[in-house]
């Protein structure tokens, strides 16, 4: 049999490590559960190594077109492994503090990672659907991992209910597409669509419902409503993970579907996503302006950033998709970086995540404040940070395709976003800290190291972005 398994090695590593963690879990003393987290981190590293081993394959499909091995898959797998590893690292101390340090947590992270990888790699709607479900169910649980905490529980409930609801739409969409093309394989759908000439209206409707499903996953307006609540309620490291991982995975799958399965409907989905992009950016930014909880503010900011990414998708060009890939990397670095600091500064019970708690941070924790400022500056898209290059790339893709109006709205949104990002800086640096405010805990060395790497990374992406830009451009789908 010519079944090729090697591209699945990273997946296997992740899943097996997850199982290993579950096996070891009962035999690990409560105070040593972080070891399990370390296993998870090692697993991501091993998976990454496995990924590296088989990196130089030409694009091809395995498992009857189910699993596509190409630069795109490779790119996203890297991203997801990094995200997962950092999230695990970030979680360990947090989980100890919140007394939720259990092996399941890390196992679920690893499973979620494999789900994300499947989403990026999948060449069939069914596998995509299953990938989404693995990721979703894992994150439902992670969001509710602090099960004694009403907020965490509520986050989990909301995410689950709405997630399942949206999944139903997605599934209906798959059904309709299957019904009108007779297949769920991307490449087959594409061939048929081009053969058919005029596409059946049911395909169109099916695609619309797919957009609803994916739109929910990446929190596009008006399918975004869950995001702020869930991001706020979930344990902070999970929030950090959710704002980057599932979002990137959602975009990875969405782009694949749109580009590889439904390019024939390009005019239709661009015109819908054009509007959705505007709504998403604007709503995210406008509402973020009034937030007082930093996690929630970053949640709305995450919504807004999904809108920016959509700009690149709307462009529907190689440049645009390259920009999307690049931006997802940049966004991951800056958002995870910001969350690393937010998580590190929070106190037990996810307290001290309000804007007021950051008053005078510039003096009390200069490094954390400076790093957070840098990430915020990057999120705002100011030059010399990766955020600028990312937005530059996205907007230029839009302009190249003549979407001037969209680009203008996007930049106006950027201006708006400056307001709330910089407000946090105002609070950290420009307000005097009130008397008797407890000093923030020192950041743990590994997280510190991650933040430092993030700082360097975001500057590197801003000052010398060519390498990653080229990587992103070469990893786009044809």
């Amino acid at each position: 049999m010519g079944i090729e398994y090697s591209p699945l090695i990273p997946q296997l590593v992740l899943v097996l490590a997850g199982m290993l963690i579950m096996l070891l879990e009962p035999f690990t003393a409560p105070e040593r559960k972080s070891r399990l987290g370390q296993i998870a981190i090692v697993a991501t590293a091993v998976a990454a190594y496995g990924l590296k081993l088989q990196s130089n394959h030409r694009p091809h499909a395995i498992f009857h077109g189910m699993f596509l091995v190409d630069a795109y898959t490779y790119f996203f797998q890297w991203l997801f492994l990094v995200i997962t590893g950092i999230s695990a690292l970030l979680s360990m101390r947090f989980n100890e503090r919140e007394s939720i340090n259990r092996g399941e947590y890390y196992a679920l992270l690893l499973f979620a990672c494999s789900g994300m990888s499947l989403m990026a790699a999948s060449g069939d709607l069914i596998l995509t659907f299953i990938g989404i479900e693995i990721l979703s169910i894992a994150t439902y649980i992670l969001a509710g991992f602090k099960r004694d905490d009403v907020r965490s529980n509520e986050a989990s409930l909301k995410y689950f209910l709405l997630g399942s609801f949206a999944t139903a739409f997605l599934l209906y969409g798959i059904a309709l597409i299957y019904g009108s093309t007779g297949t769920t394989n991307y490449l087959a759908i594409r061939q048929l669509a081009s053969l058919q000439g005029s596409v059946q209206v049911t395909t169109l409707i099916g695609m619309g419902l797919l957009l609803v499903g994916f739109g929910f996953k990446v929190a596009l307006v008006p399918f975004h409503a869950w995001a702020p609540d869930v991001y706020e309620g979930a344990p902070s490291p999970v929030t950090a993970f959710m704002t980057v991982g599932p979002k990137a995975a959602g975009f990875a799958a969405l782009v694949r579907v749109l580009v590889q399965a439904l390019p024939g409907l390009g005019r239709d989905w661009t015109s819908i996503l054009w509007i959705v992009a505007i709504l998403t950016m604007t709503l995210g930014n406008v509402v973020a302006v009034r937030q007082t909880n930093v996690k929630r503010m970053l949640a709305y900011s995450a919504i807004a950033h999904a809108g920016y990414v959509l700009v690149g998708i709307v462009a529907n060009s190689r440049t645009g998709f390259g920009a999307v890939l690049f931006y997802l990397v940049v966004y991951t670095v800056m958002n995870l970086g910001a969350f690393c600091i937010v998580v590190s500064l929070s106190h037990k019970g996810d307290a001290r995540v309000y804007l007021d708690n950051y008053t005078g941070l510039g003096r009390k924790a200069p490094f954390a404040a400076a790093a957070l400022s840098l990430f915020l500056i990057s999120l705002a898209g100011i030059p010399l940070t990766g955020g600028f290059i990312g937005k530059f790339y996205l907007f230029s893709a839009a302009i190249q395709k003549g979407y001037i109006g969209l680009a203008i709205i996007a930049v106006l949104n950027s201006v708006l976003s400056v307001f709330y990002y910089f407000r946090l800086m105002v609070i950290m640096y420009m307000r005097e800290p009130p008397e008797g405010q407890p000093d923030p805990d020192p950041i743990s060395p590994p997280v510190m190291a991650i933040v430092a790497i993030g700082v360097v990374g975001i500057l590197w992406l801003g000052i010398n972005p060519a390498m990653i830009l080229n990587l992103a451009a070469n990893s786009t789908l044809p």
Partner: protein
Amino acid sequence: MDIVHYLILSALLFIIGAVGVIFKRNVISIFLCIELMLNAVNLSFVAFSSFLSQVHGQVFVFFVMVVAAAEAAVGLAITIVLQRNRGTLSVDDADIMKW
């Protein structure tokens, strides 16, 4: 029988389920409505499968069932935690986080 009938029935069930999700207040009722929606989709899958003379559609139904079972398990677990923490099953009470 025409496939269109099945499709329309499926759409009707789907929409009833969707409306129910918004309509119902009890968490479990909402689950039930979501299950209803999934089943509506299944009906479509089977109908397409049958009329296209393909087995694929029926394979999907398997997967959907597994997913539905998994979701049900997790969802019910979440519901139990909700009940434990808050003593309620009404989603309207789960609104600590807003704005």
